[in-house]
């Protein structure tokens, strides 16, 4: 029972790292980026390539996945995304679906269509048994890494100058511009950070969620659920949404496997009906 809770939290943590970048970019530029999963996939593949072809140790691939995807994020933001900010949601949706399609086909072409598999270092395999509660070592590792990340993000978001500027811009980009905050540069930076986190999440998630070319499509829904339920103006909102989703998903499949797959969708629809602005959104007049 506790194991299930633990598994769910670990799963939710990965979801959070994957989705939090999307939440901030969505809030900041009001930009619907369905291609967020493609960045996560890229991070996953970077780790796979580094480990399988170059023999880089797993731990080292994680920061590399982050940096690599962040760099790609910066370039894409500059070249492709920026012209899209002014357009309507529909165009953005179509544009990013196009990117997803290209990423899926491109990954298939370059990496093959099969599930990618990595070999974790021995110390991350297996599990502890604490008082009858089985705890997977890798899941514990994921939990710690993502927990630290979530904590530092929350700290950075609330306590640093960057964070306060970011919050101001998310609240009202126009006013923020008026106050002399360089919203565009801020956004490029945030976009890079968000994509980098997605890349890291993708790398961490290989073991838990698998990695194949259809990854961006398969998990798009999960990311969007996290963002819509969590709202786009805080870090804690998506965090708790991801936890809720992870635990509900895992517990649902455990207790009622017959309808396990429904649970997150039903949960999402109900939450959106009850709280159309997101479960943890701040009330706005």
């Amino acid at each position: 029972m506790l194991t299930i809770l633990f598994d769910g939290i670990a799963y939710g943590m990965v979801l959070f790292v994957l989705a939090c970048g999307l939440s901030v970019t969505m809030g900041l530029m009001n930009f619907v980026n369905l291609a967020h999963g493609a960045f996560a996939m890229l991070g996953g593949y970077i780790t796979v390539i580094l480990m399988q072809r170059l023999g880089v140790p797993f731990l080292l691939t994680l920061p590399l996945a982050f940096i690599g995807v962040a760099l790609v994020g910066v370039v894409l933001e500059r070249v492709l995304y920026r012209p899209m900010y002014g357009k309507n949601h529909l165009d953005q949706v179509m544009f990013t679906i196009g990117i997803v399609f290209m990423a899926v086909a491109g990954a298939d072409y370059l990496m093959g269509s099969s599930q990618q598999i990595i070999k974790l270092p021995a110390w991350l395999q297996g599990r502890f048994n604490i008082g009858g509660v089985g705890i997977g070592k890798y899941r514990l590792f994921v939990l710690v890494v993502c927990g630290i990340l979530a904590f530092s993000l929350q700290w950075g978001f609330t306590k640093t100058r960057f964070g306060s500027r970011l919050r101001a811009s998310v609240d009202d980009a126009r006013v923020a511009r008026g106050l002399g905050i360089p919203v565009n540069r801020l956004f490029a930076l945030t976009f890079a950070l968000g994509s980098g986190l997605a890349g890291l999440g993708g790398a961490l998630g290989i073991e838990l969620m698998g990695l194949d070319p259809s990854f961006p499509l398969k998990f798009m829904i999960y990311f969007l659920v996290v963002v819509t339920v969590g709202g786009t103006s805080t870090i804690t909102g998506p965090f708790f949404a991801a936890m809720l989703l992870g635990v509900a998903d895992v517990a649902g499949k455990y207790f009622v496997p017959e309808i396990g797959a429904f649970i997150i969708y039903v949960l999402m629809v109900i939450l959106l009906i009850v709280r159309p602005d997101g479960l943890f959104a701040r009330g706005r007049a």
Partner: protein
Amino acid sequence: MSTLEDRVRASLLASRRWHGAEIAFWLLALAVFWLFPRNLLLLNEIAILALFALSLDLILGFAGIVSLGHAAFLGLGAYAAGLLAKHGIGDPLVGLAFAMIVSGLAGLLASPLIVKGNDLTRLMVTLGVALILHEIANSWGSLTGGADGLQGIAINPVLGLFSFDLFGKTAYLYSLSVLFVLFLVARRMMNSPFGLSLRAIRDNSLRAAASGVPPSQRLALIYTIAASYAGAAGALIAQTSQFVSLDVLDFHRSADVMLVLIIGGPGYLYGGMIGAIVFKFLQDTISAFTPQYWMFWIGLFLVLFVLRGRTLIHGGVKLIMSRLPARVRGKRS
């Protein structure tokens, strides 16, 4: 005064009068039956996709409701028609009506979820509803055949005369007829006071309410109608292929139809049809010479389209439509 009234009447009439290009479009749609006898199956798919996109146009182009889960109603209609035929009522027109009623009812039930809320909420709710239906169809194998698809559908000849053949002749003419009739109905609706009030809501919901238009009621109504149109498209899939699989509820259907409509341009009824032609043509040509990676090229097309190419396609379309009065032409929301 009577002269001004006459001018007002003339303007209102002009906005719904048939344009030469429209007549040419439909004549051409019929003519391809003889021009491309080898491609009737593809043409049939285009006609069905066009009907599905028309359904989305009713809510997106005319009422401004975005949806990422329109396949829910397509799939519901397909399963409704398929199940009816499987259980002994094989008449295609009865099946069509049944599918439209079932999907329409579902649309009515779902409408409270979408009439309120912003774009993002709508995208998510529609997506969620479609996913839930997909899961139900998947899990309820005893009824739907689950992942194996619905087998054993037997469709009677249309009007008792034309049976569905391997060449797709009956299929195309049947689908085209249904598309045409439903198009006529939609065209009439969009030029009615009701259609005008929808455009008002899409343009400016604040002003619409201040003009006495009740937005929730109208949106619920058009959502219901659009759902039944999607159901009709689903019924056509089930009947012309005599097979229904889970794919009709898949996410890519919802995404595709949105892309189709945006390619063709929403809000003037022909966008879905033009988009369907472009999309299917692209898909077919590209996948013919690169069966593995057509998805890449479709993706590239979309990206370029949004960045640059829209003016190209729409420029051509607008050239044709330019002589239509402003009211029909509408504009993108």
